């Protein structure tokens, strides 16, 4: 293990000395920081109910005939956006028509649009907003009248809407998992690079087993990922997102990195060159991301499921985690790590994989079975 650590130490040193890597490393951090700023802005707007609206300021550009004797919606339409003309017509007469029928409350609104003109979209958007605003007004009036009569009834204002829930839980969880897939190129360069540059022969001649070479190189990538994860978590928290149980989430992420790096190592060991490895990890990562995301989506929609991403989402939502959930997730990670590293080390021990002629996947599988 001492020799593995020597390889790990030098791989980390060499990686951080590389200008290309440093550029990518810093670029990722800056990108995340900007993404978080935008996220934060969107979330604040969602929380306050504000929306970003672009006013065309085109007087008399979009015109709407409105039949709304009580002015329920008419008064909510922004005249800077749509010019409102009061009418008592009940059918469209060549222009867009909004018909509001109200027998007390609730009301029914019908919008007639000439879809052949681009103005219809402006009218549609503004009417939708106006309907939304008047709907909120009416709801408030109802609530106010109910509060006066029933002292025990009050409006619930605490809680997150579904989009907020998705952003807070799913998006933050995905952002946290993302670094695990950003350093595939490091392990590819570290292992396939030894083959392409033919430096591997000298390394194999060292008094260290081939398994320790792979483990040392993998460990270096896991350490770099772990550093990156800390930085990402700090940025996410600094952007105003709460990460409850941060140490436990960090542990889960680092443990999830182990089989991901193991699988990448397996692809790298088998690949002859960068091109093959690049194609290989693209396919493999799509499958891995699927394995992580699909259970997470099932969890969001149905509230059940097991997996590292689900654990992280539960922790982000401050939900209770059962020991069985933890055990199932961790044992899944351990078993997949053992399988991926076992296969990578088995392949790396073979002379034909390192010096050719490389056997096909089917032949290897037959040999393995």
């Amino acid at each position, binding site marked *: 293990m001492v020799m593995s650590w*020597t390889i790990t130490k*030098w791989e980390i040193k060499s990686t951080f000395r590389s200008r290309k890597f440093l550029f990518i490393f810093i670029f990722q951090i800056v990108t995340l920081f900007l993404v978080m700023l935008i996220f934060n802005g969107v979330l604040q707007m969602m929380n306050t109910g504000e929306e970003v609206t672009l006013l065309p300021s085109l007087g008399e550009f979009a015109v709407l005939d409105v039949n709304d004797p009580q002015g329920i919606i008419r008064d909510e339409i922004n005249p800077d956006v749509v010019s409102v003309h009061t009418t008592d017509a009940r059918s469209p007469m060549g222009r867009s028509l909004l018909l509001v029928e109200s027998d007390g409350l609730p009301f029914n609104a019908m919008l007639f649009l000439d879809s052949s003109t681009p103005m219809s979209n402006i009218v549609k958007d503004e009417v939708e907003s106006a309907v939304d605003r008047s709907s909120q007004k009416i709801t408030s009036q109802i609530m106010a009248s109910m509060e006066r009569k029933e002292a025990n009834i009050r409006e619930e204002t605490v809680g997150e809407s579904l989009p907020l829930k998705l952003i807070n839980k799913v998006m933050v969880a995905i952002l946290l998992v993302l670094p695990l897939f950003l350093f595939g190129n490091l392990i590819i360069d570290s292992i396939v690079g030894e083959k392409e540059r033919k430096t591997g022969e000298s390394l194999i*001649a060292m008094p260290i087993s081939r398994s320790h070479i792979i483990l040392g190189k993998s460990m270096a990538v896991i350490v770099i990922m772990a550093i990156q994860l800390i930085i990402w978590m700090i940025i996410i928290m600094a952007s105003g997102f709460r990460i409850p149980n941060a140490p436990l989430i960090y542990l889960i992420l680092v443990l999830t990195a182990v089989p991901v790096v193991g699988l990448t190592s397996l692809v790298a060991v088998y690949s002859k060159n960068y091109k093959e490895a690049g194609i290989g990890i693209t396919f493999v990562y799509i499958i891995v991301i699927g394995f992580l995301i699909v259970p997470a989506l099932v969890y969001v929609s149905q509230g059940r499921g097991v997996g590292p991403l689900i654990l992280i989402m539960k922790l982000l939502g401050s939900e209770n985690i059962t020991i069985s959930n933890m055990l199932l997730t961790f044992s899944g990670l351990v078993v997949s790590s053992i399988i991926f590293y076992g296969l990578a080390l088995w392949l790396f021990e073979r002379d034909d994989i390192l010096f050719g002629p490389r056997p096909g996947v089917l032949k290897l599988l037959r040999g393995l079975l």
Partner: protein
Amino acid sequence: MIEVESVRKSFGKILALDDISFRVDKGELLGVIGPNGAGKTTAIRIIACILHPDKGSVKVAGLDVTQEPIKVKSMIGYLPEEPNLYERFTPRNLLRYFGELYGVPRHVLNHRIDELLQLVGMEDRADDQINTFSKGLRQRVGIARALIHDPPILILDEPTMGLDPATATSIREFIRGLKGDKTMILCTHYMEEADYLCDRVAILNQGRILDVGTPQELKSKIKGDLALEIYLVDPSRVNLDLLEELRGVKNIRLDGNKMEVSLQERDIIPNIIRMLEGNVYSVNTRETTLDDVFIEMVHGDELDYN
């Protein structure tokens, strides 16, 4: 020190080594010569524990390479055919990295690095990146890397291939300076290099060892000590049978109007010229070289093989 016994190695359907056996004594420099694809690199890679033999045994200082590869590797300094160094490293960093991998104690390592950089004449470029180096400089760094742990055994695969004559000569002199101190195996294409440096030479062809011996022994097996090159006016007028009966003539080869006669002694040259009187255009003499041995043996082996 190194014993190779009935080793066989295949790569897929290609038989790279076919039951080869040889040994290298302590302090000896064994040269391995052979054409491309003869199995030289495969043989030394097995000794250096880089490849696993399919059959047979290889022992280094009594240790089996398949049973105790880590111990064996720590006794060997290996210079591959292409040194292929890490481009972003400096020689000093590279030597430190490999020194640590060989387990050289930290307090010894710094001194050892300085010593080796001086030995291979790289002290001025010790902190420059390797990607700025010529092939000759890289080879020097490669040699220093192979020696970083002061191994008792050194395996060198084509150390002078592709180098300019001056650099090649300096590397040969460096290797010569290590003779006696280290047990060495040297794979080379250059016969004069093997002749100049090696105590014994193994000739390898098509995965088999054709012969092992000192350069002198090998030369005397195939030809005499001296070769006589005669350019003839009319080759059809030569009576080869009569010439071969002359005492001291070992071998005669006629190629167009050039006749090559291997001799054991210089004294019979006048007799030969007398027998060819009127048919001689020019005469040259030269010492028999390993080149002659190599061509003769490999050519003969290929004829037998076919």
